[in-house]
């Protein structure tokens, strides 16, 4: 069995290739001028430039967090280029046909036929290639319903009042080191606004792709669901093979106004580095949602990529009867390190939250769940259920659980459960005896382990997630 494992573990990253498109790129380094320049390139209003500069000065006073259970060499923030855009920014393609064929080919290689997917699955795609939006589809259809789905820079131009109102209302500028950095230098991202009572007829989706070598990717996503509205948003990521570590510090903010529902799903498959831990993406992401009365925020994530993941999609259950959910599958293979989890802050009465976290460790991967459940004094009748399961494949990996539970009233109920196990020999034997090969057997068992999370994913994502896990597992069987 071990020979097979060794062979399977060596499998190279499938999505490793570089698309050669000329890019307009700022030289490495970060100071006020760089920020002014980014702001100028984006054609931003003066208040935005000021806001960025303020964030920058705050960031300079902050310290990079050292509490996560991860190890990496210090990042030189002056060695990163903070802006890169595909050529012809003034001449952006207006429809899919106008999109650079090389770019479309890149998506093809990733197995994401943009137009086909858009048509067949009814998905509107706001494709982010490096830092500038290249194509936005189905806009008109959404426009009819009053839904705004556009790039962040466009939102700043067309809907500054909405952006101004909600930007940094959930994740304050000084929330953490990486969020402050993002505020200062973010180049683009997505903006979604769903008007009152509107149910978004299709899944909204953004595909991120880091391309230009040593370019930090700083995305900003803001989703506002007005009263009684509903939206499901998909985010998927994959990146080409690089030797140099690439930094990614995104910020995602969700605002669920009274009665609204937001479902945010992520499949993250960035380059995890090679066997020796060389290369790979550093993924330091801040994701948080604020839920008003009777609203619901649901985070679902499948994290299989990145050398280092530092990510805690959180819910502030601010309004009474609001609901927060977190479903996660995190895989750490090779020398990947993941420190991920969630925070559920119960402020309103009768707020409910569910956390289902499945961690899979293989190779020399280190996987940590870190979560906070906080029940404030006024959160009467609050309820939390947390389940963290870890699966260990191989004897050189690690699975860790660091839950923080903080309860301040008597009417709430908080439960936390965790277990750690490995794939049992008898399960493998059973599958193999029925004619499945080793790989299929493990894949089947792991998929079963993750089922509770996968069924929360939108249909098309669930398929992709299952495939992705199977591919990643090929290098992780034990």
């Amino acid at each position, binding site marked *: 069995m071990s020979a097979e494992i060794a062979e399977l573990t060596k499998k190279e990253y499938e999505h490793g290739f570089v698309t050669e498109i000329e890019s307009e790129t700022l030289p490495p380094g970060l100071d006020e001028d760089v920020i002014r320049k980014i702001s100028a390139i984006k054609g931003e209003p003066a208040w935005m430039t000021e806001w960025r500069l303020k964030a920058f000065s705050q960031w300079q006073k902050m310290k990079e967090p050292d*509490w996560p259970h991860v190890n990496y060499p210090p990042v030189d923030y002056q060695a990163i280029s903070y802006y890169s855009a595909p050529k012809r920014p003034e001449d952006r393609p207006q429809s899919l046909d106008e999109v650079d064929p090389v770019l479309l080919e890149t998506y093809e290689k990733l197995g994401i036929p943009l137009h086909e997917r858009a048509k067949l699955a009814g998905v509107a795609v706001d494709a982010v290639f490096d830092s500038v939006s290249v194509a936005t589809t189905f806009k008109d259809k959404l426009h009819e319903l009053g839904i705004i789905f556009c790039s962040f820079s466009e939102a700043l131009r067309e809907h500054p009042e909405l952006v101004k109102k909600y930007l940094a209302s959930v994740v304050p500028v000084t929330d953490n080191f990486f969020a402050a950095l993002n505020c200062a230098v973010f180049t683009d991202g997505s903006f979604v606004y769903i008007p009152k009572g509107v149910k978004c007829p299709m899944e909204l989706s953004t595909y991120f792709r880091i391309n230009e070598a040593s370019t930090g990717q700083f995305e900003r996503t803001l989703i506002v669901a007005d009263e009684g509205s509903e939206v499901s948003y998909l985010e998927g990521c994959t990146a080409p093979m690089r030797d140099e570590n690439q930094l990614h510090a995104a910020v995602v903010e969700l605002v669920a106004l009274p009665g609204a529902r937001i479902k945010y799903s992520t499949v993250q498959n960035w380059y995890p580095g090679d066997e020796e831990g060389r290369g790979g993406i550093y993924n330091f992401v801040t994701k948080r949602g604020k839920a008003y009365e009777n609203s619901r925020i649901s985070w679902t994530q499948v994290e299989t990529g990145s050398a280092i993941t530092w990510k805690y999609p959180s819910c502030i259950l601010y309004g009474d009867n609001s609901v927060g959910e977190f479903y996660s599958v995190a895989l750490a293979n090779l020398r990947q390190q993941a420190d991920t989890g969630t925070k559920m802050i119960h402020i309103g009465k009768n707020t409910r939250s569910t956390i289902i976290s499945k961690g899979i460790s293989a190779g020399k991967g280190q996987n940590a769940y870190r979560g906070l459940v906080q*029940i404030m*004094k006024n959160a009467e009748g609050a309820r939390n259920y947390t389940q963290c399961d*870890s699966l*260990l*494949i*191989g*004897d*050189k*990996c*690690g*699975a*860790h*659980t*660091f*839950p*923080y*539970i*903080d*309860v*301040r*009233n*008597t*009417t*709430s*109920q*908080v*439960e*936390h*459960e*965790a*277990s*750690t*196990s*490995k794939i049992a020999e008898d399960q493998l034997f059973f599958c193999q005896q029925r004619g499945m090969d080793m790989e299929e057997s493990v894949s089947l068992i792991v998929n079963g382990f993750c089922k509770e999370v996968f069924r929360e994913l939108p249909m098309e994502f669930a398929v992709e997630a299952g495939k992705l896990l199977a591919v990643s597992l090929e290098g992780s069987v*034990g």
Partner: protein
Amino acid sequence: MIEVMEQTELYLGAEITRGPAWSTERRQSARKRFRELGVPHGRQESWRFTNPRKITALEAVPAAAEGVANLTAERVAEYLLPDTAWSLVFDNGIFRADLSSRDGMPEGVHIEPLASGEPAELGDIENSHAFTTLNDAMWTDGVSVRVDDGVVVEGLIQFIFTGDGDGGTPAVHTRNLIKLGAGAKLNLVESYRGRGVYWTNAVTDVDLGENAELTHFFQQLESEQACHTSRFRVTQSPASTLNTHNLLIGGDLARRDIDIALVGEGAHAGIDGLYVVHDTQLSDMHITVDHAVPECTSEQYIKGILDNKSRGVFCGRVIVAQDAQKTDARQTNRNLLLSDDAHVNTMPQLEIYADDVKCAHGATTGQLDRDALFYLQSRGVDEVAARDLLLFAFANELIDRLPSEGIREHAEAFLEHRFHSARQLGE
């Protein structure tokens, strides 16, 4: 509030040199290390939820070397458990031979006060836990126990440590050393009692030989104005068994650190804990179980009952080393909140580097079951009695596991008293 620097010196008591000559050198290096570490503060991760301000605010000074001699035989009689066969009594860190009874100790059991006994091997000084380092520098006395190979001690040995705030606020640094030879067996009780304002800072080190078995009952019934910090460090050889039962009821701020190192295959550690706090009390348990070798088992079962504005902190950590296959580690923390002002922080943590292991943890925080209350009331039990009954049932799970009938009865009586007084306050 005095400055940190001054606080450090206050704790080290100018240039006090006390204790036996064999300990002097070690004390000096511990003093140096404590000065480097400084007094803990709330910004350190391990003190994040238990702000040590309550301890520093006492401005406790090293307990007088001559002792206070206030402790009477009547009070000792009250502190003795019904099953106790032998006892050693310390008042403000000073051994009281007159109140102790060591007659008829079986052959092969060597019990003596640490300060006046044979030179002992206390190991390296603590490098990171400042209050343990302070203990390294400042311990006045404690118990040294050595049980020879194969000696099984049937009777119960009780150590009584009292704090007395009469005439000043003493810092009492107690140091115990317990060594069980291969196949030895011992039943031990550590009782911490006292009155007034004082600070107990105790360290107990245990070394269990192959197949040795220690049953340990830790009874912390300090005065509610006092602060208590204690450290319990155990190293376990192959196939040894530790069962430690911790009852934490007293102290304005009480923190107990338990560190178990399972370094011999097939060792088992059972750690029970029950904290019952009210008013502004804070009770903290930090437990680390280090599974360093294969085939060890551990079980942590900690429960808490919190009333009024009290706080409970539980931080349990299980570490399973890369080669520690076939480990079975369990960890449970259950809390019952009786008041909206009570507050619980629980952090059940697992750090696992081996794949063939069974590890599970669970934590719950909740209130008394309304349905159960209703059921009892519908059967004619009044609300107050029903509440008492359910509280008692919650605690009883751990009381039941206590090592002897006498200890169980004693604990039951104490809890009954506590629930009763809480009820009267509530009325």
